[in-house]
């Protein structure tokens, strides 16, 4: 917000905005496609997404064993 009366604040703000304005941006259609691709590439290695068998998940309880 440029509501301050201070020259220092205004200069800092202008410098910061200049830096931000000079950034090279890419269209969302391209970047979003990359985000989706990343998800698809890694979905098999995501245990919370695909669920893994109780035997390989240390937190899930194994089947109870019955003492005969």
């Amino acid at each position: 917000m440029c509501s301050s009366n201070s020259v220092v604040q205004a200069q800092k703000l202008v410098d910061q905005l200049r830096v931000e304005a000079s950034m090279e941006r890419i269209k969302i259609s391209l970047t979003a496609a990359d985000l989706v691709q990343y998800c698809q590439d890694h979905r098999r290695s995501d245990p919370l997404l695909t669920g893994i068998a109780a035997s390989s998940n240390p937190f899930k309880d194994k089947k109870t064993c019955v003492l005969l």
Partner: protein
Amino acid sequence: MCDQTFVAVTFGPCDSCSKASPLMNIYIKNEPINYCSFCVEMMACQGLQKGETLASLKRECDNLKKKLEEERGKLNDVELHQVAEKTEVLGALSVKTRRVLKGHGNKVLCMDWCKDRRRLVSSSQDGKVIVWDAFTLNKEHGITLPCTWVMACAYAPSGCAVACGGLDNKCSVVPLSLDKTENLAAKKKSVAMHTNYVSGCTFTNSDMQLLTCSGDGTCALWDVESGQLLQSFHGHTADVLSLDLAPSETGNTFVSGGCDKKANVWDMRSGQNIQSFESHESDINCVKYYPSGDAFASASDDATCRFYDLRADREVAVYQKDSIIFGASTVDFSLSGRLLFAGYNDYTINAWDVLKGTRVSVLFGHENRISRVRVSPDGTALCSASWDNTLRIWA
């Protein structure tokens, strides 16, 4: 010449005019300078280019802001969920509480996993920091800090130390010893010194450097061994509540979020604020990078979580529902980035489909606000810390 009131930490002779007055502590090229406010203004006016005045600077400021909005708007050719239309719809998660970690005597404020995927550290309002083995529920270490509200804790990448900080305005590193009889608090080493509470901390890629954020509005990078300040990051205009380091492949940046409703991306080497996002309507409580490093999510008191694309430089998704009216305090992504777990002040954790923007599941169980959620390093489990004095492991 009237200027803004400012919080003066020091009073003394000005470095420039030698008059005793409240001093503004500013940084010029990372060198601290203590000038009285009059000399600061004089210096700034001398720095003005020919023809610049305060009014012209303000005009340029407004123009640049408009230009930024336009540039960002031009790239908005499609919505994220439209691009994600072809991806499969997620079924409800079959995730439930597998462990409840009881032992803290008061609100658990923060937790962090160890890289070995089974240990975790948690800190609470009563000043206790506990290191747990999540498989066996064994408490391996307990450290009592002299301050209350330990709001930040982090596990070192080596697993040999933890960092913690809070209302003491410091962040300390405690080496973990295998000897159970040793008093760990005695070996505590203060690394970071802020002028207000420490709200978040994380080790960088090694045990040697610590990144902290604070209620004093700054973030800082410290050398653990010497306690020296390596870089400071100024730009937030209110308390900084959270930070997250970019995943290692993408380089030296981190994101921070705070009470000024802004999320800023910083270059760690230069201290420069490279990108800034302001679309939340209230304090940002937590920020977290997407696993690829090209985006990040934020949780806010305005009851929404938002997703920002760094390369397009804009917000690309908002995760909200009319039925969710309580603030979100914490977020974390699952390993593939498809799921976003968010903890809320209504005691629930919502799992969102990042790409489609829909809610996949709600996890109930805690009896008070969720303060932190973190997915384990191998993605098999989610740990949540809450004001109900417990932590839960969901898998």
